[in-house]
């Protein structure tokens, strides 16, 4: 065991030395090729097209020819499904790549002149792919509708460039009006929207729809009632994300319903916020809930407040509130990250009844462990429909269920096909997978 420990670094050092020596030999060999012999002159020709290192030996006729072989033809195509800001560039590598370290690809607008007009847009290692997508570098963006010119240089270990012939791009970049890679998303999205609207219509026509009871939502009334009986406040944390997060919006709709009940029971409410925009929306939602409950006078402007936008400072602030004010009920609904356990565990220590809900899969175990009730994933989005019982909201939940039914049908079919494939040695599932699977699109 001890020998192994000594052997591994020793072997590593030996390998390093060997590769270093080999690299040095290669450099020396190339230097000898490139270096002028005594009495020879070297012309500085870097940057000249079809460049050669031209030895000039007195009395010996010059033999012009590149020291390094230069890349060949360049092919340029417009990239599909882009905004007209990318081109697919491909070049032929030199026949002899000995001594070539990398390729430098330069671009300029067609018609421009002068060496300074060339922009280095890509460096490709000698063994790297000679096909690449140009336009990613924000320093040198590609303008739609502009014709460009390219040239590629072989680069030696010393950094000298040997340029191939410049070539005007065969294609002009142009943006497309439809992304062909997103057709399957369009079909699935269209089907989903159709199902949602179908159930909206059904609900509006007065059709009774059954919703599976969710313990966490049914416990909301009980939790607020408990706080009222104890004469302690209710704490509502609408997550730590911004208003652009759908979980935050779902949380704010639940906050409206919770605040209405809190107003009816005349229980104090505290809503700390991490995001200033979420704070303003939460403030409006709570104010409106008190108005709807017929108790606008009971609304305390200090009940909804901004704390800080720093993640752990927010946790410290909320934990401090929990330890000082000892709220009887804590709601954690929205988007949470690492702070979920810090919040919920502190709340658990204070003896509060806790209802959590998030769509962050990684935080769910922490909430399930420390909270009395947890709304898992989509239940957070369905909570508003459960609390409001408005037909259209219930219709949306039924539409979601129908979509899940379709997915379940697909999974069942795939399961059956995979067993059939195993038995009959066919590839039906692979064939179906190719049709259904959405390709990765940018």
């Amino acid at each position, binding site marked *: 065991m001890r020998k192994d420990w000594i052997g591994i670094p020793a072997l590593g050092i030996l390998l390093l030395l060997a590769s270093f020596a080999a690299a040095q030999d290669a450099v020396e060999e190339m230097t000898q090729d490139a270096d002028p012999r005594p009495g020879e002159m070297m012309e500085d020709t870097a940057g000249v097209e079809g460049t050669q290192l031209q030895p000039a030996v007195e009395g010996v006729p010059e033999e012009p020819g590149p020291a390094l072989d230069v890349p060949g033809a360049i092919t340029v195509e417009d990239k599909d*499904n882009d905004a007209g800001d990318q081109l697919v560039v491909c070049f032929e590598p030199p026949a002899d790549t000995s001594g070539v370290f990398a390729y430098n690809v330069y671009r300029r607008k067609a018609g421009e002149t002068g060496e300074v007009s060339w922009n280095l847009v890509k460096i490709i290692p000698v063994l790297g792919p000679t096909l690449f997508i140009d336009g990613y570098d924000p320093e040198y963006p590609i303008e739609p509708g502009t014709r460009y010119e390219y040239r590629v240089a072989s680069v030696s270990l010393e950094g000298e460039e040997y340029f191939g012939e410049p070539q005007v791009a065969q294609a002009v970049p142009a*943006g497309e009006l439809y992304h062909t890679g997103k057709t399957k*998303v369009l079909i699935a999205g269209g089907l989903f929207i159709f199902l949602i609207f179908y159930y909206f219509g059904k609900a509006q026509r007065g059709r009774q729809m059954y919703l599976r009871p969710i313990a966490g939502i049914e416990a909301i009334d009980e939790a607020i009632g408990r706080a009222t009986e104890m004469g302690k406040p209710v704490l509502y944390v609408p997550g730590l994300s*911004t208003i652009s997060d759908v979980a935050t919006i779902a949380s704010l709709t639940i906050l409206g319903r919770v605040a209405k009940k809190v107003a009816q029971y005349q229980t104090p409410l505290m809503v700390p916020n991490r*995001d200033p925009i979420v704070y303003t929306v939460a403030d409006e939602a709570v104010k409106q809930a008190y108005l709807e409950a017929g108790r606008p006078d009971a609304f305390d402007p*200090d009940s909804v407040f901004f704390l800080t936008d720093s993640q752990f400072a927010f946790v410290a602030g909320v934990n401090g509130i929990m330890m000082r004010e000892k709220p009887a009920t804590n709601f954690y609904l929205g988007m949470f990250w690492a702070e979920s356990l810090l919040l919920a565990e502190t709340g658990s220590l204070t003896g509060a009844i806790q209802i959590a809900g998030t769509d962050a899969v990684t935080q*769910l175990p922490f909430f399930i462990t*420390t909270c009395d009730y947890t709304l898992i*994933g989509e239940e957070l989005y369905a909570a508003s429909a459960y609390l409001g019982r408005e037909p259209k909201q219930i219709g949306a939940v039924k539409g*979601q269920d129908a979509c899940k039914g379709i997915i379940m049908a697909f999974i069942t079919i795939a399961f059956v096909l995979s067993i059939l494939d195993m038995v009959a040695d066919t590839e039906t599932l692979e064939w179906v997978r190719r049709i259904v699977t959405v390709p990765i699109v940018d």
Partner: protein
Amino acid sequence: MKRTVPLMIVMVGGILMMVQYFIPHQYSQAVFDSYVSWAPIIAAFALILGVGSLTRVHAHKIRRKAENWQYSWAVLIPLYAMPVLAHIWPVSLSGGMDEPSIFHFLFMHIQVPIQATMFSMLAFYIASAAFRAFRAKSALATVLLLAAVIVMLGQVPIGDLIAKWFPQIGLWILRYPNLAAKRAIMLGVGFGILATNLKIIFGVERNWLGGAGK
């Protein structure tokens, strides 16, 4: 009017963004970029409201001499001192301008360690939560405990020493039952997000409008 205008803005914006997703053309991208660039501008103005709210709440506490009102000073003084030290008076401890400023000193030696302390407390909270979660009070809790023991032991070298099958079983639990449950949740979340977006775009969900939504 107070309700219709915001609803129309959301509907037009929402539909535009949906359509934009399928159009990669430069004009479509320009519309998207223009919409996205509004977000930081609005956030910057909203921060003023946020700081105002924090100041108001703590000023009220101090004025009323509410319980623990002294802590409110601990909030208000750094809240205003830090921007002043950063932008208006960026001097160093010795009074010169070449050394790290007082702001930098306070940030590195107070704020950063406090935040690191809060984060590192997570380790103790995880231990306490794990203790509670792994109490085998029922059949399901026992299954959870067993699965957790196998997965945890499968991740460390001692698991391999105890039994060769520990890592394989642990990996199987993570790859199949665990991943299946995760994917089911994520699928539901995806549909939930889509449905909520549609409800907001088409005005079914209006709670986000606050007072204007009714």
